[in-house]
């Protein structure tokens, strides 16, 4: 509290800023941008950071212009937007379920999107646009099903998560079935999709994702205060004038859509939604869902992971989802360990 500062305008508007949180958000945004520049410069045609910045601002050679604008910028934008969407969605789910493990990939949304996409790949051999549509439909349907099944005079956090776990198990079985039905080519394509990758993204993927983010991110951020009050408990929040169930429905629906949009563009990238809000919380040391910080962490995390994967394993050998999966696994073990030491598990 003592680090918070209130800015007032003469018109009577005021905003309360946590100094540390603001600083962290700015640094994270800077880190995300720096990683983006580095990522644009990486590949079969390496470019220095200065060249990248010059090309982005319109001063590059035609060759550089082509490489940056047509090949690499869409990939980086998908990474930034998907990271933002996943980080924000993870923060919402963790806040609503009041649980650090309640992230979309644990509670069945990732599996729902995957099942939808696989259905299109395996049964209809659809083109990428159809696969993306299938993934959005799968994610939204599974989110709606989880919400409806968890509903019992309101949605309670633990029930939501456990219903999600059951849904994840059921959908995993469906995914497994679809994989065995496929011929080997389709199975390989499906597996690549299921890991989540930024390779070969173009402007077709950027457009819908950007629209989804532009609509949904402000919506979620607008509910930030209500979410923070919800964390004090339903009764307390209700007494403070928060429309409990409506807030939950709106934010969860937005988070489901954000996850679905990100998954449609980049595949179900593992653990960004799980790790980003927790890292953000530890960096800002602020209470509440830390929505802005979580979104920035997600973006920085995903782009950095993609850059690291390219540096370590060579261009497009290992998709970024595999790297975040392994990093996320290590992070998860650490989280379980500390939770246990703190006596919370």
């Amino acid at each position, binding site marked *: 509290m003592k680090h918070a500062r209130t800015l007032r305008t003469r018109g009577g508007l005021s905003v309360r800023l946590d100094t540390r949180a603001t600083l962290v958000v700015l640094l994270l945004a800077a880190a995300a941008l720096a990683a983006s520049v580095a990522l644009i410069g990486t590949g079969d045609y390496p470019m220095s950071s200065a060249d990248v910045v010059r090309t982005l601002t319109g001063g590059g050679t035609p060759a550089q212009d082509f490489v940056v604008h047509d090949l690499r910028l869409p990939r980086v934008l998908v990474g930034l937007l998907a990271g933002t969407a996943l980080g924000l969605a993870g923060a919402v789910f963790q806040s609503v379920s009041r*649980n650090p*493990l*309640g992230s979309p*990939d*644990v509670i069945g949304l990732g599996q729902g999107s995957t099942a939808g996409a696989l259905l299109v790949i395996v049964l209809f051999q659809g083109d990428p646009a159809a696969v993306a549509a299938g993934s959005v439909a799968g994610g939204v349907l599974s989110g709606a099903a989880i919400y409806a*099944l*968890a509903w*019992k005079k309101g949605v*309670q956090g*633990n*029930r939501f*998560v*456990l*219903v999600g*776990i*059951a*849904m*994840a*198990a*059921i959908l*995993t*079985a*469906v995914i*497994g*079935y679809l*994989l*065995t039905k496929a011929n*080997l080519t389709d*199975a*390989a394509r499906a*597996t*690549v999709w*299921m*890991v989540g990758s930024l390779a070969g993204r173009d402007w077709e993927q950027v457009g819908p994702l950007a629209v989804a983010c532009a609509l949904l991110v402000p919506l979620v951020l607008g509910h930030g205060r209500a979410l923070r009050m919800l964390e004090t408990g339903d009764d307390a929040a209700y007494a403070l004038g928060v429309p409990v169930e409506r807030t939950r429905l709106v934010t969860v629906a937005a988070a489901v859509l954000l996850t679905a949009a990100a998954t449609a563009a980049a595949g179900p990238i*593992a*653990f960004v939604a*799980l790790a980003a809000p927790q890292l953000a919380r530890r960096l800002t040391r602020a209470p509440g869902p830390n929505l802005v910080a979580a979104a920035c962490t997600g973006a920085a995390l995903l782009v950095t992971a993609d850059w690291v994967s390219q540096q370590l394993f060579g261009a497009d050998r*290992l*998709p970024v*989802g*595999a790297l975040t*999966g*392994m990093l*996320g*696994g290590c992070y*998860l073990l650490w989280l*379980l360990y500390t*939770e*246990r030491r703190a*006596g*919370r*598990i």
Partner: protein
Amino acid sequence: MLVDSAPPPTAAPEAEPRRRAAPRAAGLLAAVGALLLVLVASVAVGAKQIPLNQVWHGLFHYTGSETDVVVRDVRVPRTLLGLLAGAALGLAGTVMQALTRNPLADPGLFGINAGAAAAVVSGIGFLGVSSLTGYVWLAFLGAAAVSVVVYALGGSRGATPVRLALAGTAVTAALNGYIFSVQLLDTAALDRMRFWTVGSLASANSTVVSQVAPFIVAGILLALALARPLNALALGDDQARALGTRLNTTRVLALAAVTLLCGAATAACGPVIFVGLMVPHVVRVFTGPDMRWILPYAAVLAPVLLLGSDIAGRVVVRPSELQVGIVTALLGGPLFIHLVRRRRMARL
């Protein structure tokens, strides 16, 4: 132990009506009868229907005719594997629920099967392991590692079922990510593993059965022998110690049983989920909370469930098949949701 069925702490122990042994023994006999029926059905039903007299002929008067070969080389090993794996998964789930006092414990849900799967997949992908014996040992290694993690998490006092289930799911998610990565870097491995990772009895043959049987039988005996100490454990650590139970010995032995059972079952038929969750809940309805009855019931009824699911999977999409792991997930998922939606769940 199942918290739901425990009497409230204020009630005297006598409040629970004493159950007599005779009805429960009769129930066990009925369960054995059901198991026999399912065993016969599992040999008879499939892509090729075999009449019962032919089944009898194939089993006891083997002449080498086409149906005899199907019976002896395909259906019987498959049925035996279902029997063994079902008993193994059911007992493992029962022991885990008793050990962690968590009604949502399940080898599949807590990531033990995924641990075994990850170890096997590493073996296929990196070490070039292709024999079932290799799979079994790797599966033990993976199952043991994850059981220890689950136990480390479940042994502490504040462990609520919700947090444990979440932790298990998260571990599973991480391991699944790893499994996908390995499959991705090695397409040949993908081709072999995509069938194995679903959970199926279809690949059974007599070699598989004879290789995993000793481990599963040992695990079953160990689990059955633990009935009394697990009963004591249900009263809480302090009470159990006061009653003379050696807590650490019991826990180590129970974990060893779970590892043997899950590791062997997973090595033979891939990760099958929810059998270990469903069976103890069904069984408790008949037996009450006494582990001395729950364990034998679970050992008999779990194969009924697994083989029943397998038969259903063979029938519904004939002539193709639905793998048994898919059927159990489709059956067990709704039951899990039902358990979660029950009124008392919030208190667990």
